[in-house]
């Protein structure tokens, strides 16, 4: 299926995507700095470099649509509208978090914002998204479910079983693969013969499209079309968004497995300054507006960090609460 943008998205959408991208970058920079300097003690999986796809997806989904993401999901959460305080509080294990600080980075959920689940197991979120999409279909609701995952997830049985059922039931699902070329520390060429992950959709008879996931305009056009196909009852789409991760798999990963030239080349094409230059040259934003967006992102992140740092940890007495639906039957 050919789904190529004919004209750029409306100016308001493009500005919104830049706002989201700068906020995602500021959040990633701040978490990384805080953890590596000892200011925060936390586990974190950086998304720096992958902002454009998440911003496009966030801008294309409606607030009532739902999203399932992964442990490397803070950019996706921000795109979908999860408040920064909720995100940082969960990552730092604070009691004010939606999961009372017990979910951790890997399992952040914010149903109010439509983020139903984040998973720590590669590929595990895709069948859950199928269930959410089936629920939307059975309820005759007009909401769409999007699920994001990495390239490695498409090698799991969970991906293939979920893709098959989504196709068979014609579900309102958009499968968004953020292909950053490495499954944790393994280059994709060592784990799959498939040249384009998008082609995997062909096995299940639904459209698969590869886009430049570092170009928000291109990603937005294709994701919007896939979302509206799903909403119109025309079934699932797989969108493969090509991108790159500038930081380690997790904090402390020294990235020795990534050739220096490959990283330097990706950084030279950093989607944020690239998009900034395009918005400026096409007259969508002035220099003052862009600078203001960037300053606002930094201030928003710093204010959220302050709120979270000042918030209490869960009390030791509360540790077993909210863990089991029926604590009397919990294993001891």
């Amino acid at each position, binding site marked *: 299926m050919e789904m190529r943008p004919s004209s750029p998205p409306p100016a308001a959408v493009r500005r919104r995507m830049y706002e989201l991208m700068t906020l995602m970058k500021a959040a990633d920079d701040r978490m990384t700095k805080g*953890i590596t*300097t*000892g200011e925060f003690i936390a*586990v974190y999986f950086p998304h720096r470099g992958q902002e454009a796809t998440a911003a496009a997806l966030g801008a294309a989904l409606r607030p009532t649509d739902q999203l399932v993401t992964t442990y490397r999901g803070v950019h996706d959460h921000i795109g979908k509208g999860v408040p920064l305080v909720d995100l940082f509080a969960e990552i730092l294990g604070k009691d004010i978090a939606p999961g009372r600080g017990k979910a951790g980075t890997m399992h952040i959920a914010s149903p109010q914002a439509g983020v139903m689940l984040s998973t720590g197991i590669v590929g595990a979120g895709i069948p859950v998204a199928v269930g959410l999409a089936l629920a939307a279909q059975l309820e005759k609701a007009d909401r769409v479910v999007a699920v994001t995952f990495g390239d490695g997830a498409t090698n799991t049985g969970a991906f293939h079983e979920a893709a098959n059922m989504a196709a068979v039931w014609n579900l309102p699902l958009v499968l968004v693969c953020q292909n950053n070329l490495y499954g944790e520390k393994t280059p994709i060429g060592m784990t799959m013969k498939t040249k384009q992950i998008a082609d995997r959709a062909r096995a299940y008879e639904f459209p698969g499209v590869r886009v430049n996931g570092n170009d928000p305009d291109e990603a937005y056009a294709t994701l919007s079309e896939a979302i509206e196909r799903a909403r119109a009852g025309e079934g699932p789409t797989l969108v493969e968004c090509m991108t790159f991760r500038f930081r380690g798999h997790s904090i*402390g*990963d020294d990235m020795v497995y990534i050739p220096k030239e490959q990283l330097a080349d990706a950084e030279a094409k950093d989607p944020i300054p690239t998009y900034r230059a395009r918005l400026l040259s096409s007259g969508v934003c002035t220099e003052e507006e862009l600078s203001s967006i960037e300053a606002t992102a930094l201030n928003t992140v710093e204010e959220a960090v302050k709120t979270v740092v000042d918030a209490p940890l869960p009390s030791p007495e509360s540790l077993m609460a909210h863990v089991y639906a029926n604590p009397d039957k919990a294993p001891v």
Partner: protein
Amino acid sequence: MGAFPIRIPKVSLAIHEATLLGHIVEEGGKVNEGDPLFRIETEKVETEVASPASGVVHWTAAVDETYPVGTQIGVIDTGD
């Protein structure tokens, strides 16, 4: 005067403790946020830790000892 704690960072996913190898900024010295502040060793890996804040450094923990992640080993007087 603002006091920003200096703590043993969780520099990778699976570590629980680290050995304080040495101070890069000596007692009473000034440091800028982001500049190298001290060195630690975890699982035979040496890491230079950047300063979380700017100010005057005071050390409170001995070098060549091993500490759990999160242990306060000093303080930065931030002057604000």
